[in-house]
């Protein structure tokens, strides 16, 4: 059985598998990270770098993960369907590269992802035709990757700061047991916030009051570039052009420090709370594991070092760690190797009480799976129905919490007030998914609530999408894989041909020859020979892709921009 681990990220996704017992990230699109970007300008969705390249055309979606679990429709598609396109691209590319079919996968989600968000992630996988062994939390996955080969023992924190989200978890590691003690985070905190601020500063300096879409998109890429390339310098500059206008962007150390400090301060406050929840004092930490692209920045690393005073572990690439852990866990589930993973409920779940309060049914940081029951009664004589509101959050008032579902139990026998006995049962499975049931004890009237129906896709939508996907699927696996290789490769060739003039001349010749060769083996149906050539081409183009995308978005060819620079 072949399994993989998928880190379905906000800005980029990574897929890994175990090779000789060690995790390895699969190279797709010239790199191990696939941008989580989808473009719908053609019949088939385009994912990854080419989607960014086409971002100016129309119908391009960035960071769809931020909208998972919402009922938003983007270009007529739900966030789950868009994520499914990313997963499907990852699946097809992986199967092509390794020549093996993926049987099942572990997919990671942020620890504090809500029920609706988890459900949407699972739906995305089903649509993409990926069997989900389990959804696990990103920081837990990182801890697994980190703890695997080192046989580490002790209490560790995982500090995960990415482009869009922050997670902090405290775990106890011992003899193959990964026990999450507490977790917490913020769904809307990350590097993107810093990029925005750098962008605002520079728009102001360049006298841009109402930036166009192109200016925003390219400007943000440049802002991110500046942030990542400041290093230990006092300032870093980059100019770019859109049509004939030149933009001068700069990031000075003082500003970078100020913006990153604001973000760090917020992460530190959350971290302190999580440590308190875990009943661990900062001195008891044996180490802190850094995960997420933002932790690659020296400034963030320094803040962590100064404030936590625990040994910092950053030896696994923060971009790959999560998918590594997912791959290891997937393998461990299938092999039943005795590794024990105990994760927790990230946010308290409850029921609204009479008067707008919250009755906490499952407390945050309770290990999963878990089932808890509460008994309620009627407050009026002959009351035959009872309404319930399922809530998520730590606040004491129902209106301050997030509503997951509303439901009504009907058919309660007419009785004097306070005599009916209604049992409400909350169950959370190993994936962190909630199921709510209610029944009246004396009559057995019962009702099951589909919590996910309030957001994301309904069961009916799901069935339709799955049926459609099923119809489109080829029954013959090899044939299907060959078709996938053909379609995927033709798409890549089209893309390369459109950008070949933008790579340095000496590479153009090599690339053109290889493309010709690739077209040859493809038309002759020699599918085994396709992948090695495709890999070589991906490597060639991969080196220049970032620059090409920037230039394309600026509406200029490379030579023109070079000429325009002083």
């Amino acid at each position, binding site marked *: 059985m072949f399994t993989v681990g998928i880190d379905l990220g906000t800005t980029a996704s990574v897929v890994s598998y175990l090779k000789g017992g060690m995790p390895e990230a699969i190279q797709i699109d010239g790199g191990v990270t696939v941008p989580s970007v989808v473009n719908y300008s053609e019949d088939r969705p385009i994912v990854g770098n080419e989607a960014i390249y086409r971002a100016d055309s129309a119908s391009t979606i960035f960071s769809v993960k931020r909208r998972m679990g919402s009922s938003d429709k983007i270009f007529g598609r739900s966030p789950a369907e868009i994520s499914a396109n990313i997963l499907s691209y990852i699946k097809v590319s992986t199967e092509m590269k390794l020549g093996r079919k993926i049987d099942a996968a572990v997919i990671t989600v942020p620890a504090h992802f809500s029920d609706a968000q988890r459900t949407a992630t699972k739906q995305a996988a089903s649509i993409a035709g990926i069997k989900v062994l389990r959804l696990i939390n990103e920081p837990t996955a990182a801890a697994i990757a980190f703890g695997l080969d080192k046989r580490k023992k002790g209490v560790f924190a995982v500090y995960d700061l990415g482009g869009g989200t922050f997670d902090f978890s405290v775990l106890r590691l011992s003899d193959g047991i990964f026990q999450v003690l507490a977790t917490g985070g913020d769904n809307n905190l990350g590097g993107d916030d810093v990029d925005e601020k750098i962008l605002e500063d520079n728009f102001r300096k360049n006298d841009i009051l109402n930036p166009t879409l192109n200016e925003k998109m390219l400007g943000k890429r440049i802002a991110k570039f500046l942030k990542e390339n400041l290093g230990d310098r006092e300032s870093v500059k980059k100019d770019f052009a859109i049509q004939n206008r030149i933009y001068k962007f700069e990031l000075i150390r003082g500003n970078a420090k100020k913006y990153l400090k604001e973000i760090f301060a917020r992460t530190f406050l959350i971290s302190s709370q999580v440590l308190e929840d875990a009943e661990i004092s900062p001195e008891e930490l044996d180490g802190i594991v850094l995960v997420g692209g933002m932790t690659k920045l020296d400034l963030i690393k320094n803040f962590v070092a100064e404030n936590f005073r625990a040994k910092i572990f950053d030896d696994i690439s923060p971009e790959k760690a999560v998918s590594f852990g997912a791959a290891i866990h997937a393998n461990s589930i299938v092999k039943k190797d005795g590794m024990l993973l105990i994760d927790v409920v990230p946010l308290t779940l409850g029921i609204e009480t009479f008067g707008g309060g919250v009755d906490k049914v499952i407390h945050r940081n309770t290990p999963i799976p878990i089932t808890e029951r509460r008994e309620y009664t009627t407050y009026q004589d002959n009351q035959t129905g009872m309404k319930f509101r399922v809530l998520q*959050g730590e606040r004491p008032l129902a209106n301050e919490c997030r509503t997951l579902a509303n439901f009504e139990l009907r058919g309660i026998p007419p009785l004097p007030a306070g005599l009916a006995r209604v049992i409400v049962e909350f169950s959370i499975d190993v994936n962190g998914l909630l199921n709510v049931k209610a029944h009246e004890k004396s009559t057995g009237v019962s009702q099951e609530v589909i919590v996910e129906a309030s957001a994301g896709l309904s069961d009916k939508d799901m069935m339709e999408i799955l049926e459609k996907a099923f119809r489109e699927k080829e029954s013959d696996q090899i044939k299907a894989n060959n078709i996938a290789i053909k379609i995927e490769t033709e798409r890549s060739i089209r893309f390369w041909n459109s950008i070949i003039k933008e790579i340095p001349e000496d590479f153009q010749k090599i690339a053109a020859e290889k493309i010709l060769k690739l077209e040859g083996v493809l038309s002759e149906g020699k599918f085994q020979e396709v992948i090695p050539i495709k890999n070589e081409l991906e490597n060639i183009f991969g080196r220049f892709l970032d620059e090409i995308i920037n230039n394309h978005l600026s509406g200029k060819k490379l030579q023109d921009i070079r000429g325009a620079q002083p």
Partner: protein
Amino acid sequence: MNYFEILKLPIAYDIDVDLLTRNYFSLQRSSESSVDSGLLNEAYSILKNDIRRAEYFLNLKNISTESMSTEMSVKMFEVREKYSSLENDEDKIAFQNQIKKKKKQLISLLKKSENDLAKFSEVFSELKFLNSFLEKERADVYSRN
């Protein structure tokens, strides 16, 4: 079986937390199918938590944890009044830390008074209040305005 029995511990408030965790791990590992992992989690999460364990302990002894003495109500009112009169964040944090310290003292007091259930129950209701007070403040950290 009650939660103490499930996790192979004597029925007592003052438990050996390390033993609790060790038993929990070994049951989770060995019992992939025989004992329900959800039930183990339920038992473990309640026994591990000093406040929830106290409540469970009292319920096992058939003592209600819902009622509260007038004296206690007055005490709680005073705490809330005092806190809401504080204006700057520093004072608020200092006050919270004071409450946290008090909470710890009450927990060790509970451990010493499990043979005197009337006292145990009184200490518990104060502890429960202080905890819900802290919970409310804690929730603010997670919801930015």
